[in-house]
């Protein structure tokens, strides 16, 4: 690989100093977490019933939220990328809002929509599917924040994809839905997978919308981030250890994305 031009010259201090400070800002807290983690207690902690309960709950909810995001997000991305529906540009902008929206605001918005006194509340009460304080509420909150990651990733892949093979399949007489499942989807599969990983990571880390919308009850709606927050009050070392577990999961997820991010 050829070195970029000018790389041999001494890097300017004006850039190097803030760069070092920036890296330190990101890495010092993570290093601090690792130095304070009671590694000796980790094995005892991970078999504790309440911790296992939170880990298992988090995993189930994140998987469900990722599945829901795939089920709804891939078609949504396709509609945004491939159709000429009126208002699709506005819609494209709007579906990405949860990406930057403070999660607690997401929780408030979810309450106002799906809470018992929310806009759709009476309908949900009627159907016996009120999401507040239930696992279903956690999945809904996580999907709200995770779905945009999937839509953005998949839509980007669709937009970059040449229409040629889809058109060929079409001229050969394949129905649009068949073209989608046999030509389009296999081609963008790596992007769908990357989007799913990003969504899953976001779902796993969800805190603000969950605690606002679904409450916090061990074994029912208390996911690992909520349990870290609760443990910080009465057993800080346990909170550090559980944080280290989440950090490890994040590192693994980032590594799994590396081939794509390069």
């Amino acid at each position, binding site marked *: 690989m050829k070195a970029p031009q000018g790389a041999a010259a001494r890097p*300017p*201090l*004006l850039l190097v*100093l803030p760069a070092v400070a920036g890296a330190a800002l990101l890495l010092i807290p993570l290093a601090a977490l690792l130095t304070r983690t009671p590694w000796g207690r980790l094995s005892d902690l991970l078999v504790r019933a309440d911790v296992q309960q939170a880990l298992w709950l988090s995993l189930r909810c994140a998987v469900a939220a990722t599945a829901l995001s795939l089920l709804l997000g891939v078609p949504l991305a396709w509609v945004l990328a491939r159709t000429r529906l009126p208002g699709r540009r506005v819609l494209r902008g709007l579906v990405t809002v949860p990406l930057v929206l403070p999660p607690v605001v997401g929780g408030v918005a979810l*309450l106002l929509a799906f*809470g*018992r*006194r929310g806009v759709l509340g009476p309908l949900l009460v009627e159907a016996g599917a009120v999401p*507040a*304080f239930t696992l279903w509420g956690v999945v809904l909150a996580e999907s709200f924040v995770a779905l945009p990651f999937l839509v953005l990733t998949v839509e980007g892949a669709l937009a970059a994809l040449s229409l040629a093979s889809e058109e060929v399949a079409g001229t050969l007489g394949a129905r649009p839905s068949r073209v989608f499942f046999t030509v389009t989807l296999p081609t963008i599969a790596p992007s769908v997978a990357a989007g799913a990983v990003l969504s899953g990571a976001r779902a796993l880390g969800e805190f603000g919308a969950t605690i606002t919308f679904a*409450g*916090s*009850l*061990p074994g*029912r*709606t208390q996911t690992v981030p909520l349990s870290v*927050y*609760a443990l*910080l*009050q*009465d057993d*800080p070392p346990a909170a550090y250890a559980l944080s280290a577990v989440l950090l490890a999961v994040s590192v693994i997820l980032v590594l799994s994305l590396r081939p794509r991010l390069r």
Partner: protein
Amino acid sequence: MNRRSSLLALTLATVLAGCGSGSSTSPTVPTKRTITVFAAASLTKAFTAEGISFETSHPGLRVSFSFAGSPTLVAQIKQGAPASVLATADLASIGQVKDKLSAEPVVFAHNQLAIVTAKGNPLKITSLAGLAKPGLKVVLAGPTVPVGKAAAKALKAAHVTVTPVSLEDAVTGVVTKVRLGEADAGIAYVTDLVGSDVGGVALPGTTTSLAIGAVRGISAPDDADAFIGYVQSAEGQKVLMSYGFT
């Protein structure tokens, strides 16, 4: 010194100068010293009013509050948060940081548990036993939060088993969930029924004690004591009583 580093030095100098002029006050305005008070969530309204009347009678002092569940505050102080005064919803909470206080904590007010419900108590929940009704969504505070601890004790004494839908980290979380209509009822304090849009009933025989203390080495000791003394004074007590404390 080459040009690059002199530019950097200039930038730093500008930034530092900016910081300096921001934090120093102009000589015409007398400097107000700030007392940072960490107070239990149940004190939010009462202490905010207390702060306003305290500042009026102590022109050189400013009070800044941080309200949260007592265990949250205690955890923050253990980690070295710069609070000059700590007021918790029970003695056990403040007792956990006794080594950081300049004196023994003192009880300055009492509260009482209450069942909180929607305005007007539409489901007619009048006793702890009423909370055990199947299908009722009840919110409690967590077992380390004073109101949660007191509620668990009261439920146990009344031989009532309640399965909560959420365990909040402060009493304000309990009241909010009931106010929003997400939960049908919760156990909070009688002070939450004063001037509020929730309904409910007081639970007799469930008195709780709020305690206050100065944290050592944070502010001028006299400042912290001035606020603590004010809260215990006739004037300060009047404010607390107007919010339902006894």
